């Protein structure tokens, strides 16, 4: 079980200067995955990761639920349409947005202990 390696999303939020877009703002994270190719996420992301992407289309939600990914971080200040946020709330997925680029966000997450 990965339980002991889980990290609370709330404990890394300030490090990446991220704001939750969804009503839900907490998730247990097993790690992190960065990709803008949906099939790559489907193929290689573990369940329970924080997914970092620039895509804000609703396909991200479908893809995340398919892999049991609980939180998605949109980088470079991107924000999805309100419909996508509503859908994420319905699926229990936390959506976040940061002004940082993927590389910077990932570095700060690593420093904050999400490994």
């Amino acid at each position: 079980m990965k339980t002991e390696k889980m990290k609370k999303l709330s404990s890394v939020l300030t490090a990446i200067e991220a704001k939750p877009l969804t009503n839900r703002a907490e998730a247990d994270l097993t790690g992190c995955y960065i990709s803008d190719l949906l099939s790559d996420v489907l193929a290689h992301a573990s369940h329970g990761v924080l997914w970092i992407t620039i895509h804000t289309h609703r396909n991200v939600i479908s893809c995340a639920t398919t892999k049991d990914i609980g939180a998605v971080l949109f980088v470079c200040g991107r924000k999805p349409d309100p419909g996508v946020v509503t859908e994420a709330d319905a699926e229990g997925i936390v959506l976040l947005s940061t002004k940082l680029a993927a590389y910077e966000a990932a570095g700060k997450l690593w420093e904050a202990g999400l490994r």
Partner: protein
Amino acid sequence: MSPATAVEKPSNPGEKTQVSFAQVLVYELRVRDAMTSVAFTASATDSLRSIQHLMKAHRISGVPILTDGTLVGIVSIEDIISALDQGHINESAERWMSRKIVTLRDHYSLVRAVAEFDRHGFGRFPVLDVNHRLVGIITRGDITACLMHHLERRAEEAIAKEAALAATRAEDEKAQRVVINADVKSGDFDSAGKLSQRMREVLRSRGIDPDARRRAAVIAYEAETNIIIHSLGGRMSVSIDPQKVCIEAVDSGPGIENVDLAMQDGWSTAGPLARELGFGAGMGLPNIKRCSDKFEINSVMSGGTRLRCEVLLPPATAPSNPEMPL
């Protein structure tokens, strides 16, 4: 008195003895189950001639002789033949009947009855109850008929039970099968994942193993987006059984020119819009194959593509396991 061994086969020591159902039956069934009740008796004072008529009229081969209700002898067809031969057919039974009668008790097991037949070589035994009253006659034929009757009855019961069980099982499986069908439109990127979402909900509610659930979800999602991105439109069908999920994706064309190439990681023919949305990584089919326990793809140019995948489901655990933070 030797124990009954008539139906027991010698078994090698150490070898597991297989007991046939007939062997069980000969221990379970009693003489009273197999015997025929006594319809005709004669008294010791009756003539052998009258007994011969009785036998002829009723096609019986032995008549018990009673005196005051007690069995005192038996006249068999052999006794009649020798009486005819030696000219004492008109004499009374008393003098010529067989008096040394071996009887069986009605509560004896059939295996013991068989042993008695083997030991004495008689064709029939009179059967007495606990009060020494004559209650029946038993022959080897009676034992065989009785065994056959019981074997047949048990076989019929077993067949009926099996059939009932199979019917229940089929009904259960039918009740437990969920089929989701959905038309998938070409280019409808906004709807991608709707079908796999419904499938996931069913799998989750059934407490299906998370890994199997995710693999089925990836297959359904990739297959659905393949139809959206590459085809002229098609249809998805997902059937969920207790043992497996079967995902079928059929489109109406244009077909995959080179399936082997399409199965290679990174090879894609996706257009710019699809790529803009994060599709077209060229990983769809390889992803599907990797997640499938059974994978079939057929494609005909200008005909269409048919994909069929199966994910085998391990026995479900309780859905209460909070394995996912979702």
